[in-house]
């Protein structure tokens, strides 16, 4: 199974997304790195690294992030982890809430990392009107 990591500036957002996603796919490996180490708003590459390492089951990890600086922290985290693992970790080009839920459901069906990332990216086009 492809693991999913949710990186938000806010711990509340990251945890809320995880809860929502797990409703649709109980027991799926979903890990969060929300907020800074001291509980503030921000991102922490070290905790992102840890979440990625926890989420991987050998089939890779799809990472969802909220704002630009979270993206930078994810890139940095990827540089810090083992290259062998890092090679199967990708940031989804997707909105964090809509993309995470789609990604977790897709991953829980046993889909490939590519498919999971694509499904997350497609969540951009979710029409709300």
């Amino acid at each position, binding site marked *: 199974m492809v693991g999913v990591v949710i990186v938000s500036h806010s711990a509340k957002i990251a945890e809320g997304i995880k809860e929502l996603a797990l409703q649709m796919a109980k027991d799926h490996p979903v890990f969060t790195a929300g907020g800074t180490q001291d509980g503030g708003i*921000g991102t922490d*590459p070290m905790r992102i690294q840890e979440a990625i390492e926890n989420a991987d089951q050998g089939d890779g990890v799809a990472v969802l992030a909220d*704002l630009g600086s979270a993206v930078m922290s994810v890139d*940095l985290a990827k540089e810090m982890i083992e290259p062998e693992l890092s090679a199967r970790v990708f940031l989804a080009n997707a909105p964090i809430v809509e993309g995470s839920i789609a990604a977790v459901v897709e991953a829980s069906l046993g889909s490939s990392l590519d498919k999971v990332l694509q499904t997350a990216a497609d969540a951009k086009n979710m029409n709300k009107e």
Partner: protein
Amino acid sequence: MTAIEAIKLAGQAIIEEKDFLTDLDQAIGDGDHGINMARGFSSVFTKIDALKDDADISMVLKTVGMGLISSVGGASGPLYGTAFLRASAACKDKNAIDAVTAKEMLDAAIKGIQDRGKAVKGEKTMLDALIPASEAIGTGIDAGKNVVECLKDAVEAAQTGVEYTKTIIATKGRASYLAERSIGHQDPGATSSTTMLKALYEYVK
């Protein structure tokens, strides 16, 4: 003159400007740049104090980079963190820094910031202080100036760069949400970069 002393002075200068940097970020961002950077350097100080006395410049800069990465929390964390790591790599095994090495280190830092943040000059970021600073060092080297003279020019160029950021629209980072409304405000990151360069110059001069 030691790298540890230089870093401590740069960090202290940032900590002294904490409120100013935060106010700047309040105007065009999320109001945390001073807080982020002050927290970052406090954490760096602890790590640096734990270093052996014979730690070389490269080792000190690496410690700074890792310290900032693990504690800043904002975009400036990965950006400055990467910058210090790259500067560290650019001075490996060096015990003294001449103007040429200084420029190599600064260019490596700039490259790191660009690899990380995908910005170019003119997007109202720290690069608008750092790139002119590097260019000034280059001009100084060509004119036969020493490292202290070059650093003086670098600080002036960075200060001019900060002024320049007031006149342009942010297209990277949080200030880009404001588009034209970011005009008239100086960039917090360009400001903190200049503060660090200035502290370094004050120390070596």
